Structures are given as C-alpha cells and as structure tokens.
C-alpha cells in the first residue's frame, strides 16, 4: 500500500524559471536533504494518483520520487505493515 504525502519543501528558483527541490520536511518534522536530482520530467504517479513535474531524487543514498503538482509537493510513501 502506498500513500500520497504532501510535504513542505525548500526549493531553489533559478533566474530562468527552473525550480529544483533542495530539501523537504517529513511529517514528523525531520528535514531530509536532497543529495542529487538525476531526472526531472512530467509524469503521473501510478501509485498514489496525481501528476506534475516528477523529480528523481537521491536522499541518504536511496532513490525516490518527489512530485510538484501545481503549487504543492508530494511523495509516495510506502506503508509497511508491522
């Protein structure tokens, strides 16, 4: 089961209009730094729904997606059952 989680993001805005996420706050308030962005393209999220600019990011050595949908950012959270 995967959940759509909207997150607070720190982003950079270049003079030519390119927006790149730099770090984001998880729901528990922890700040995660984005180490690198390897891809950015328009895409739909098949797991949680919605579409927008999808950034492939690396955080603590793990690849993940973060989406910019209109003016909001979301990630696909994988729910693990205990």
């Amino acid at each position, binding site marked *: 089961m995967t959940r759509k989680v909207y997150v607070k993001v720190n982003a950079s805005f270049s003079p030519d209009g390119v927006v790149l996420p730099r770090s984001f706050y998880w729901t528990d308030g922890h700040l995660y730094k984005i180490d690198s962005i390897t891809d950015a*393209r*328009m*895409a*739909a999220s*098949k*797991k*949680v*729904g*919605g*579409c927008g600019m999808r950034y492939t990011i690396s955080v603590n050595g793990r690849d993940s997606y973060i989406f910019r949908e209109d003016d909001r950012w979301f990630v696909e959270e994988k729910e693990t059952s205990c």
Partner: protein
Amino acid sequence: MNNFFASVECTRNPSIKDKPVAVCGSVEDRHGIVLAKNYIAKAYGVKTGDTVWQAKMKCPDIVIADPHYELYMKYSKMARKIYSEYTDKIEPFGIDECWLDVTSCKDTDGDGKTIADILRERIKYELGLTISVGVSFNKIFAKLGSDMKKPDAVTVIPEDSFKEKIWDLPADSLLGVGRRTSNTLKFLGIDTIGQLAKCPDEVLKRKMGIVGTRLKMYANGLDTSDVTQSDYVYPVKSIGCGLTFREDIQNNRDAAVAISKLCEDFGSRLRELKKVAKGISLFVRDNNLNWKEWQTSLPYPTSVPKTIADEATKLFISKYKWEKPVRTITVRVIRLISEDEPFQISFFDNVQSEIKNEKLDSTMELLKNRFGDRIIHPASFMNMGYMPDGMTFSALPAGGNQHV
C-alpha cells in the same frame, strides 16, 4: 480521452481504478445521473444518463464519484499543452476531444500514425490517462477512427482504402448522424456508411434537405473543413443560462421569478461583449423529462435583463400549457448584434423606462463588483425554495453597520 471524467477520478485516486466507477451529478440538486463511467461499470450495463439508482441496481458495488469540473479542465489543458508541442492547429471538440492538423509536422515528427503513437504514450505517461486516436485525411474520418478502437489505441483510415475500412460500418457511427437522423436514414433503407455514400442526392435532399447531401459528402470522404488555429476565438452567437430547480415549479408566478433570476447576468455579459440581443430562446423541460423550445424577437435590440426577462416570461405564459410541473428552464439571448449598430425604435416603445432599467442594472452590477454578488437583488428573489442553495435570499442584505 477515454471515459474522461471517470478516468480522471481513477487516476486521482488509484484505489478505485480496479472497481466499477461512475461520475454522477448531485442527487440533492436533481442532477443525479451518470455523467461518465469506466469500462468495468460499462461491463455491468451502466450507461451515461442512467440515474444513480439505476446504476446501483445494475451494479450494487459501483463507486459513485462526485464530479470535479476544475480538475477535468486542468487535465484537458495539460493534454492540449502536449498537443501544442506538435502543431498550432488544435480545434477542441468538447472538453476531452480535439482535432489536430499535423500535415506540416511530417518532416520533423513523422507521419500521422507516428505522432498519434507518441501522443498516446505521452498522455499515458505524463497524465496517467489513455486516449484513442483516429488518423485520417479529413476531420470526419479522424473522429470516426478515434471511436473505432478503444481504449489506448490508434486507428488509421487511409485515403486510398477508406471504402474497404469504413463503408460497412453503421451509418450512425458517422459524426452528424444522431438518433433522429439515423431513423430517417433507416426509413430510406440506409444502414451503412457505404449505402449512404451511394444514395442518390435527390433522395437525400428530398427527405433531409442540405443535411442529407452533406452527410453523403462525409461518407465519400469529401469533408474539406479545416482544423482551426489554437488561438481562434469563436464569435459569440448566443448567451444562455439554465437551471434544474430543486423543486418543480408549479405556477406562472414562480416561473416568472425564476426567469428573472436566469436573466439577471445577461446585462453585464452582453455589455462585456459590446453586444445587444435581437431575440430570445426559451427551453422548458417538465418533470417527465419532455421538453420544448420556443423563440421570439425582442421589441428592439437590448441588453437590459428586465426587458429580456419580461419578454421571456410572456413567451413562457403564452406557450406553456401546464400539463406537468416544470423541472428545468433555460433562457438564451440570440441574434446578437454590435451595440453600436443603429436600429429603429417604435413610436410606442417606452424609451425612458428602458434607459431607467439600463441605469438600474449598471448600478447593480457596479455594487456587485465592489461588494459581492449578494449585496443587492430584487425583493422577488427572496425565499425561492425551488432554487439551489446560494441562488436565493432568505434575509435582506446586512444594513449600514458593515464597513468595506
């Protein structure tokens, strides 16, 4: 785009994508019919236009989703943005269909089939929706092709072999052949597109007028209409406002007030377009869903809502026979001309009253623009129980202690 409204709901909420889904209007506002359904619901026999309870009878587990028109507009715009990367000739046909002229893209992006496949893949990847594309040498056959294979498919109808490909299809699969036209064609013994294509002109013309010969041209692949430029602005030919009432209307008095309410915004909308109307059209549907439409000329071209409403009410009272209560009324102003166009007034027209009403309407518009839509309204609009929420007033606007 396939099952557009339902597909958007499924892509927005993937947990329902493997269930039967129908997008339905509000039951409370008496719009409780199926607006769109996905293929799973379709397999249960759910049809567009079914009432919610009919859909639930056919498919008890169906997921009923509320419509989100802003979201559909957003997806529609995003799709058109993708199309615009290939051509500037994009002609919308409703919210979820477009004609694209890609003739000039052959050297850069490939032929029609190649571009269709690229678009199909991109829409699926970027928006999470599927499309069906028809590729052909004219708009009529492109539309026909898009309906031939669904979902997520491309159908090519080539110029040199279209007869083999489509002439055996039923005549009503052609754009422009609705239920009534299809019945007329059947009466003439025409069941297929091929039979329509070969039918003598005089037979079609006698029975169907110019429409018949035009359909024959379509069947023979002779539609020559161009795909309009994306930035083409269609001239406004009419403005309308209609409503299905919360409760059926039972008498002329309530109908007159409802008509006044429907005509309320015509003044500002016509002034914005710098137009005046020469006529009105009135559509009335009773609670048995039977409908009638009438038209009449206005005594003189006008943009004054009161004059328009008075004439529409006169038309209603003279034509509606009250065999059934009224469920829906739509008023349209038609035959619009420029407000600068001179016209002859009659000796007997009350010009002073018209000028007064025009000033009153402009002043009310000014107040609404400054203080909101509910700041002023005719007293007759109070306590209209048959109007949906937000369209009636239960108390007078607040008094002088408000500061804006």
